[in-house]
């Protein structure tokens, strides 16, 4: 078969951001998967509600609003440094500067992880008490896994920014990491509304 050269791509860049980057799509699909899992946990939460006369069940206190509200606010604030780190990455600013802002996000992440322990105590139930305890613990623990994974990944990218041979693709990784972090925080706002707020009205 003869081949005719109709298109030369030698001058194309080998770097891109956002929906032009394959990794951005991989991350988005990951978010779809995890988002679907969270959605089904919410469905389970309300499905199990039907088996109880009161919600939370009798002799169980309402979950504490105090700590959980602080954690929501804290996570929402953490979006700001992440957004700024992504903005710097888009502009190809010096890696150390991007890394510093990412470390700030990690600090917020660690704080949120510590607060999660108090939130679990504030549920006033255990995973093996009854179905209410099981599903609320499942939601909080699964989201905790996301907080830990998100913080560790952010830490890893920050370390690359400080230590590693930085290539431009790591800037793409930073912006993709930001999208994932927004998902972690956004999904918690929804789950917090379910577990800590809606429980007071249903």
């Amino acid at each position: 078969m003869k081949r005719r050269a109709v298109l030369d791509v030698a001058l194309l860049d080998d770097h891109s951001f956002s929906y032009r980057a394959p990794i951005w799509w991989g991350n988005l699909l990951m978010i779809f998967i995890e988002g679907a899992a969270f959605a089904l946990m919410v469905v389970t939460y309300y499905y199990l509600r039907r088996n109880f006369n009161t919600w939370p069940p009798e002799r169980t206190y309402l979950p504490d609003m105090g700590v959980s509200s602080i954690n929501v606010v804290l996570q929402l604030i953490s979006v700001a440094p992440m957004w700024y780190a992504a903005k710097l990455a888009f502009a190809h600013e010096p890696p150390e500067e991007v890394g510093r802002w990412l470390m700030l996000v990690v600090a917020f992440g660690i704080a949120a992880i510590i607060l999660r322990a108090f939130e679990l105590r504030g549920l006033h139930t255990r995973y093996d008490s009854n179905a209410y305890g099981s599903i609320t613990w499942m939601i909080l623990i699964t989201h905790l896994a996301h907080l830990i994974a998100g913080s560790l990944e952010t830490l890893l990218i920050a370390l690359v920014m400080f230590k590693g041979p930085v290539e431009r693709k790591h800037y793409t990784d930073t912006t993709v990491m930001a999208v994932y972090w927004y998902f972690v925080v956004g999904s918690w706002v929804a789950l917090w509304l379910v577990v800590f707020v809606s429980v007071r009205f249903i």
Partner: protein
Amino acid sequence: MAYSEALPMREDTPEPPPLITVDVENDVRAKLSATWREKSGLWGWLTSTNHKSIAKRYIITALIFFALGGLEAGMIRMQLSRPENRFVGPDLYNQIFTMHGSTMMFLFAVPVMEAVGLYLVPLMVGTRNVAFPRLNALGYWMYLGGGVLLYAAFFMNTGPDAGWFAYVPLSGPQFTPGKRVDVWAQMITFTEIAALIGAVEIITTVFKQRAPGMSLNRIPLFVWAEVITSFMIIFALPAIVISSTMLATDRLIDTHFFNPAEGGDALLWQHLFWFFGHPEVYIIFIPALGMVSSVVETFTQRRIFGYPAMVLSMVSTAFLGFGLWVHHMFATPLPQLGQSFFTAASSAISIPSGVQIFCWIATIWSGRPRFTASFMFVLGFFFLFIIGGLTGVMVASVPYDLQVHDTFFVVAHFHYVLLGGAVFPLWAGFYLWYPKLTGRMLSERLGKWNFWLFFIGMNVTFFPMHILGLMGMPRRVYTYLPEMGWGGLNALASLGAVFIVASGVVFVVNVFRSLSVGAPAGDNPWNAPTLEWATSSPPPSYNHLFIPVVEGRDPLWDAAPGELSVVTGLRTDRHEGLVTSIMDAIPERRYEFKKETILPLLLAVFGGGSIVIAIFSPWGVTIGAIFTFIILACWFWPTISPDSDTPLARRRLP
């Protein structure tokens, strides 16, 4: 950017661009072969990240599990061939039918359909590898781990025995103590990770790596089928992820998701399981539709009739597939409105299926059909799938379903749909693509034997089950009394299984014999229209010498005879591919694929090991998380190598 600006087509330019000389081709071929050479030996095998190597072992592994699942089916038929048979006892029988269902669904059908996609999709869209090669390798190792776990447990008499859908309360801690169900739940963890990885790979590869000019309306139907299936995997599998986790924690750390005494709910399991389980059927079936389209187009030498209708039918099948899981639960207390809704939704699925059948008939009618073994399997598919579809419409109706629920009628129905609707197209695909994978033709004579033995055996085995079901024979009984009058039809069904085994033997003989004595295939033995036939058989590790430029829906038929338009300018000294835009496939950037590494295997061993530990202790999860992070950190940690980036960016930034 206007399409014509981005892609100057031949007619837009006053003088046709030059042909690439043989010298240049040889030069590029030598460089690409050196860059993309796969390491030899065991180490090369363990570290490979080439999509074809991985997909081939995926397919072979899945076929081995198909054979094992078939052996279990053979044992079931042996046991049921006469009343009060003592071939196996009730406990082993429970394990065997659970293993059969779990193997066929989780270790054969879904993986093999994805594996064929992982082999063919990059070739068909004209790229050099899948988007995330290392992740792809991890997917295979996880899948293998799940299969090994299940069978290791089975041989230690710890095979799951609560049915492939593991209904609670039977599968709960109270009624199935021991570790049998835990093994099942963790096998699910392995295979769901593998399936999700495959889905992410396929979608990203198709969205971002199509050859220039392959706009959405020019994507081959098989590729469409794989993309649609992958989206179904992404939205359906989370349901089994969380339900199998709930089941495992109910059994291991005393949560109460499914324990009615503490406010849990047994029907919750059925809802979550079938919200995954019904789409699962279409996850198996839709790739098969894509294969049928490829076969029909190739062996009628006619463009597929009604391409937009075909794509939209597959999309609507996928959407509807999420809206009818409750028809598996008609025997549970449901609100009447729910019954009506799910009956209507279940019947509605026959509409897009019907549209496709008519499109294929129109294609065959107006084409010049060649009755090869591959095409015969497609004709068999029409016959069997339509029977399965008709009984499907029957069981979609609640009053009828209540009569035949949990009887052999249902067994007959879903074997017609799954064997007829998925396995026959898969075999049609084997006969179509075997020359591409191996460079040799399969024997047509043995292929016809393969087909007729399978077709006859399939009908002799499963048709009598309709009648047995109507006579009241329930599923999952290890034996029955002579007075029931089920002996004759069961003996007939068991006889049919002999034909199926014989056809399997013919297939295996054909595959191995053709490897050495099959006629050489050449690049495109069937004069097929899609891009996988534009490269040699078997394809080189870099797939296409030059990335093709696509000028129509059937690239090889639309190109000038004996000529292919191609892209130049990609680097040959590293694993480089082309990223194009999602809608019109306009070139956007060059892209470096990750190279081979041992890390995916390490992650599968340590991560998988911790999943196995989690059968016995919740600490498995913690240990696994730590190992996973360490390995992922190594995975992502940048290394400077001369080919890691363009000279401009290789220096330390800024």
